[in-house]
């Protein structure tokens, strides 16, 4: 049985507008004092696509106002590629990729030291779905080691109970990223063939448990390409709004992972173009001006350069998506996804500075734990 989309996330009342808004609706949305679902839907429309430059101008103005002329940098660290999930689109799915590996304690420390010496102060620790190789105890050990070295430690792993999140928070983690992948229940079931991740309802309730467990921020996203992007982004928008109202002392951030057709032979059923991805990001910035918007190295340099400081205020760089990738001399295996932006830190920062953006490595302090 597929899961159930709760009524507080249902995008149905706005979907028609998202498909058929008139240019006048878009212009109203662009200038709205307090944009909500109606404005967000209008900005997702084909008519808004014709006004993409106007959206970009408005988005840049709001990004600057709330985040200044800065761009915060972070780096992911893949701890383990063991996985119990059967996601059709993922290079880490349980029926793919042998052999598997995880970082043992001493390897973990070497990887953490390697990325610390690159200058990073924010690290995102990743695992697959829960397995005995990478469970809560394993993750807590990694968080504790990372917290000794980095100002900010966040986690992207498997759905947990609130108490488990509290235990990671106690070890020093300040945030958790958990993507719904798609909010469309039938599509979700088809994409997640087996394993605990097949439980749509449980995954949907996870961001609330993250904040219930005392984390300061929850990172959210839909994996664009799996379902109608208008449906998914409207649900995502409503989900983020709901969490902000309920957990008023916590923050949400939004990421924009996208499945590209050329990756691992998987053809996404609803491919999202560069132009439409930009439109989605601008729509979020215009309607949630103070929410951090994040873009990873999954995207190509040209797209990232164009979005930096315009819609997006936080990016990863110099990422390896394989386990042990930071000490390895060369990339030996394809990771969870293909890194399209493989520039080093220096050239990336030079690009930011040329655009009048200050790269910020440290934007947090251990004292706030």
């Amino acid at each position, binding site marked *: 049985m597929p899961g159930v989309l709760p009524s507080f996330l249902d995008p149905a009342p706005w979907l028609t507008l998202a498909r058929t808004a008139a240019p006048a609706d878009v212009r109203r949305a662009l200038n709205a004092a307090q944009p909500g679902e109606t404005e967000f839907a209008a900005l997702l429309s084909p008519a808004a696509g014709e006004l993409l430059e106007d959206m970009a101008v408005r988005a840049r103005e709001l990004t*600057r*106002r*709330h*985040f*200044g*002329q*800065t761009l915060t940098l972070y780096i992911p660290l893949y701890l383990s590629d063991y996985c119990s999930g059967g996601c059709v689109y993922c290079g880490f799915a349980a029926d793919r990729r042998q052999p598997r590996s995880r970082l043992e304690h001493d390897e973990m420390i070497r990887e953490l030291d390697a990325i*610390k010496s690159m*200058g990073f*102060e924010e690290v995102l620790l990743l695992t697959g779905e829960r397995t005995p190789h990478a469970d809560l105890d394993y993750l807590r050990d990694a968080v504790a080691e990372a917290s000794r070295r980095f*100002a900010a430690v966040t986690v992207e792993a498997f759905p947990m109970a609130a108490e488990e999140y509290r235990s990671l928070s106690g070890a020093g983690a300040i945030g958790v990223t958990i993507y719904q992948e798609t909010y469309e229940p039938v599509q979700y079931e088809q994409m997640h063939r087996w394993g605990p991740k097949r439980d749509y309802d449980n995954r949907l309730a996870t961001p609330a448990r993250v904040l219930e467990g005392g984390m*300061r*921020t929850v990172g959210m996203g839909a994996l664009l390409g799996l379902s109608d992007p208008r449906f998914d982004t409207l649900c995502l928008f409503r989900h983020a709004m709901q969490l*902000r109202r309920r957990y*008023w*002392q*916590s*923050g949400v951030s939004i990421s924009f992972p996208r499945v590209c057709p050329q990756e691992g032979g998987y053809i996404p059923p609803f491919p999202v173009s560069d132009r439409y991805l930009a439109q989605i990001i601008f729509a979020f910035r215009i309607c949630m001006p*103070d*929410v951090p918007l994040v873009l990873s190295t999954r995207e190509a340099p040209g797209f990232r350069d164009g979005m930096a400081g315009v819609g997006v205020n936080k990016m990863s760089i110099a990422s390896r998506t394989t386990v042990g990738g930071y000490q390895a001399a060369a990339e030996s295996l394809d990771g969870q996804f293909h890194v399209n932006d493989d520039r080093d830190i220096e050239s990336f920062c030079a690009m930011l*500075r040329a655009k*009048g*953006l*200050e*790269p*910020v*490595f*440290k*934007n*947090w*302090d251990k*004292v*706030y734990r």
Partner: protein
Amino acid sequence: MNKLKLGGKEFESRLILGTGKFSSVEIMLEAIKASGAELVTVALRRFNRDRPSDDLLGPLTRLGITLVPNTSGARNAAEAVRAAQLGRELSGSSFVKVEIHPNPHHLMPDPIETYEASRELARDGFIVLPYMPADPVLAKRLEDVGCAAVMPLGSAIGTGQGLSTAEMVKLIIADSGIPVIVDAGLRAPSEAAAAMEMGCSAVLVNSAIAAAGHPAAMAAAFAIAVKAGYAARQAGLMSRGDHAVATSPLTSFLTGS
């Protein structure tokens, strides 16, 4: 021009600068120099001893002006107190801007936690400048626990909505025995001048300068506006009326009873 007195120290300039949001450290330093500011706030979370190119503390220390570490990032009094202590240890400055905004989206200060942290830090010998909602009662409570000044917000951080709290700020100034410094929300130098004309002792500006087309030039413009507003206040503004008032009395011919 009288000097601004804060925590037993005196300052010529009544413009305080925030140091976040600039497009580079060089541009930030140019703006500070152009502003003539002698006090700047800096977030503890932007101190980075491990990577000098990412650090704000080092370059600001070298300017030789007074640093006011802020506790931005703290959600409650306990975190703010810890941050203030670390900030004092690292910067050598006893000034602290207590900044506790638990909601990361609108960044409105928490009056209860701000009060608790300010009381504890004042007792611990800090020169405490609390960022606060424009609440006249809270302002007096903060004065009573030993704050060196109060910093009511003009409007929400980064919004550039100007002095939307003007009526409350006037009430704060009317009762205050310590300097009142408007912090946050100012967009234009004219708004800074208006705050000074109203009787503020200083203003704190960050976004309006950092996000300007030419930050150093805007910093200089704010400096002029703050001086003009302060001078106007000292000179004594004429009272506002609804009707025109003739410069020569119209009834002087009525000499008899």
